[in-house]
């Protein structure tokens, strides 16, 4: 059996196992959860080392028949198909590595109903890995929605004061998007009589343009809500703010990446023609997201909300890079997904540690923390710099590639993006100043304990990865090279075809709508 099956289902088995452990023995539960997630992480590292980045096609494939749908012209086999390629490898490994850290980070704040927490956490891991690994549309949708339920419980049970509002809002927003996607997905499957992703890629051009367009947008809507792209971002701030620290880390680290991954996989790879036609829409939304998110973050008085809003801004970069549709743009965006997971994950961990000590997240309740918690301050400054894109750290590489890629496609939006980098530095450094430096005005803050070994241990691996990506990004970029090069070439071909098609349509036949992307790409 393929390694991927183990990676996907080991967490699920773990969840079932943990469900049978005694609920009162928290120590045992934590150890079990840590054991399972570590085992998956080891598997993830094995996967990493055995993955050949120069191959464009999915590797470690695993295919079994699941069921057959007899509708429309014939029988469509729905298959249980897993595989990993350059688009998904980084996210898969990130998920496996982040999980033990999330388990460890739960020590401080998950004190009641610990068993349930770990069960949901592991179910969620299975769901997220399934999303990244599945190569069948139905299977993808299956995991996509399954991964919602655990977060719904995690935010709703262990969240902050407005947790119920936040969790229901999160769930309904996401489900609204995904149900529209479901209709589009069904239309795609029946239109082409296949639900095999690798088979569908390259065949979507066979559909009429109007059908392609609405299916593309039904997918894009679901992913845009998940990312979230600008007009749909309101759920994120609430969900992030109310989620427990571990939930926030997971949300920022992996769950939001499901949206950007979807945009890349189902927006660009599946519908290159549509992506080319409508890339400007996403460039605008991405660039606006960067700036708007930055302004939102500046206006926040709640530190956690500030980090949440910064997510909107950072993910705007990813969207910008993806829909620049140039090779550096896409590769930078994929790297930036990981970067955001690391930096924002670290930021949420740091906010959580501070909250556990002070029980507040209001910026005006802090100030001068650096004097009582010097180690904490070091990590905080490091993370902020990584998030703001200091050269030598991870954020810089990703943002630089994205902006370079965007500049090729559209200098204007690249320029808007650059302002976002500046704003990002402004609000992050402002927050740093207000939290760490200045006078220690609040008496309650004078007796804060510095971070302990466990907390350092949680953050250290992430910091190492931040530096590694900053100094030696090729370790990671090489793994994605094969798939992303092929993808970028395809998109480029599509763009050339479209331009030529329009030219032909205008000059030779004078038939404005007769030339379709589909016909041209064949």
């Amino acid at each position: 059996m393929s390694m991927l099956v183990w990676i996907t289902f080991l967490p699920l088995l773990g969840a079932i196992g943990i469900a049978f452990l005694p609920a009162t023995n928290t120590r045992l539960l934590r150890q079990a959860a840590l054991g399972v997630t570590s085992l998956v992480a080891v598997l993830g590292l094995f996967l990493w080392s055995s993955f050949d980045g120069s191959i464009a096609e999915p590797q470690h494939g695993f295919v079994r028949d699941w069921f057959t749908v007899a509708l429309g012209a014939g029988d469509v086999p729905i298959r249980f198909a897993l595989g990993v390629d350059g688009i998904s490898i980084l996210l898969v490994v990130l998920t496996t590595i982040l999980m033990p850290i999330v388990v460890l980070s739960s020590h401080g704040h998950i004190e009641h109903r610990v068993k349930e927490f770990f069960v949901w956490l592991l179910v969620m891991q299975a769901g997220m890995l399934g999303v990244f690994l599945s190569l069948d549309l139905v299977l993808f949708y299956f995991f996509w929605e399954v991964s919602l339920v655990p977060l719904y419980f995690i935010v709703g049970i262990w969240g902050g004061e407005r947790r119920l509002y936040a969790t229901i809002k999160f769930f309904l927003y996401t489900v609204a998007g995904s149900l529209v996607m479901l209709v589009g997905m069904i239309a795609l499957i029946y239109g082409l009589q296949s639900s095999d992703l690798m088979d569908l890629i390259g065949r979507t051009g066979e559909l009429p343009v109007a059908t392609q367009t609405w299916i593309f947008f039904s997918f894009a809507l679901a992913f845009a809500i998940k990312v979230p792209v600008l007009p749909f971002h309101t759920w994120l701030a609430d969900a992030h703010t109310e989620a427990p620290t571990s939930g926030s880390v997971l949300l920022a680290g992996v769950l939001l990446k499901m949206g950007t991954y979807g945009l890349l996989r189902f927006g660009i790879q599946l519908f290159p023609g549509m992506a080319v036609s409508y890339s400007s829409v996403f460039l605008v939304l991405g660039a606006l997201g960067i700036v708007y998110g930055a302004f939102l973050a500046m206006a926040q008085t709640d530190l956690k909300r500030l980090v949440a809003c910064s997510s909107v801004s950072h993910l705007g970069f990813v969207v910008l890079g993806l829909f620049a549709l140039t090779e550096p743009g896409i590769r930078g965006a994929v790297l930036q997904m990981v970067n955001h997971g690391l930096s924002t994950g670290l930021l949420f961990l740091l906010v959580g540690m501070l909250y556990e000590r002070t029980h507040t997240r209001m910026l005006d309740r802090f100030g001068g923390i650096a004097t009582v918690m010097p180690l904490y301050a070091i990590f905080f400054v490091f993370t902020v710099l990584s998030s703001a894109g200091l050269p030598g750290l991870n954020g810089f590489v990703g943002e630089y590639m994205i902006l370079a890629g965007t500049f090729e496609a559209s200098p204007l939006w690249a320029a808007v993006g650059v302002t976002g980098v500046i704003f990002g530095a402004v609000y992050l450094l402002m927050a740093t100043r207000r939290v760490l430096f200045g006078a220690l005005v609040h008496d309650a803050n004078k007796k804060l304990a510095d971070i302990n070994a466990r907390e350092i241990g949680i953050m250290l691996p992430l910091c190492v990865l931040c530096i590694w990506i900053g100094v030696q990004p090729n370790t990671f970029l090489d793994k994605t090279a094969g798939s992303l090069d092929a993808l970028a070439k395809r998109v480029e071909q599509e763009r050339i075809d479209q331009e030529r098609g329009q030219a032909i349509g205008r000059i030779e036949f004078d038939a404005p709508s007769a030339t379709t992307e589909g016909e041209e790409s064949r």
Partner: protein
Amino acid sequence: MSQQTVAAAFEIFDDAASVATAPLLTIGVGVLLYLVCDIVPRLRAARGLAFCGTILVALFFELRILGADVVPGLVLDKTFHADHTTALFGCVFLLGTLLAWAYSVGYYHASKPFKPEHDALMLGAPAGMMLMVGANDLIVFFIGLELLSLPLYCLAAFKRSRIESVEAGVKYFLLGSFASAMLLYGSALVYTASGTLSIPGLLDADLSSSTAVAGLALIAASLFFKVSVFPFHMWVPDVYQGSPTPVTALMATGTKAAAFGFLVAQVMPLLPPSGAPIVAVLGLVTMALGNLGALVQSDLKRMLAYSGVAHAGTLLLVVAGGMAGADAAGALNATLYYMVAYVFTATGAFGLLALMEADGARFTKLDSLRGLAKSRPGVAGAMALFMLSLGGIPATGGFLGKWFAFSVLVDAGMIGTAIIGALLSVVALGYYLRVIVVMYMQPASDVEPAPTTQRPMTAGIATIVCGVFVLATGLLPSLFLAPLAG
């Protein structure tokens, strides 16, 4: 003359007919057997055995049809139809009845002396459902409907000392018999217009005369009443709430499944494609009313009743898709799958409510579930599973049901309808999630302590069975689709 008639009767009742009607006859014999067991004092202990035995034997006969390569097809002078689809429906009806019965054990504290009558009535109900689904003649359908409805009228009013139960019974009876009368008069009009009541005959007949159209409209209206579609859904919340909860489970799932089964399996070819938009709009309005109605309920039985209305709306969309030209077999399979998932989910959900009611006071208010996850994790977990299935979240049967339903719409080219339907089901998640919120995310209310009395073991088994089926329909659809492919 009379000898010839008798001989003809035997001729009609050939081998195929005996195979096709074996489950029905089993139920008939079983009900009598049950009553005999009740009358003879020494046999009283065997009543439960008689009930389960009857269901299991009938189930065996249905499975025999399901497993055979050659199905009986049209039998009894082309009035009754038996194939894999009707057999699968039959299995679902029988299992649904068995589950509802399992939940009814220990439910009636006050009226215990009448429990045998209750069981005998309940045992008769699946015969009506099976007759409805297999009916190929409007009169046979009518008889099936009455065979199902008459026991349900009585069962709805079975808590005779409680006014709401009797009221529910009277209400259900009046509106139900009104609908039956509409069905009959409609059939009579169709008969005057075409000279036949058999469905194959009607397919060939010219039904464009105003008499025939009026007749078909009346028939459709009575069916809409039975499946609780707008504008005939007003009775549902009152009746569902007032009836004893195990009966509500049977009522909500069985009647709906049987009527939709008949509608999709037998009637759909009769309906003109031009009517598809109207049916689609009715379906969407029903979904909207059901979901919005459920959103504002604080009583769980009422909420589930409205949720049932919304599900009927979804199925009506499938009917519209079938009318608009989607693959007929696809529409039938979608209905069947949706119904299978719904029957087990809703029976489980109502059953858990029955379980909690039986435990003490009338615990069907949403707030009475507060803190259930802590006090009774098993019940809360099962309830959460059923809610997610009703909401159509993957890994449950509800998701695949929804998937197949939308597939039919896409197949028929009704994309707009599918998208509106999809968005309406987001509203539905609003109230399903609220149940989970109350159970898992809010502390137990200190006003009313959680009831703790003996729970009958049958209810636990029934819940496990429902849960297993909900998961099986969600994860292993080929188990249920395979018999239909042949």
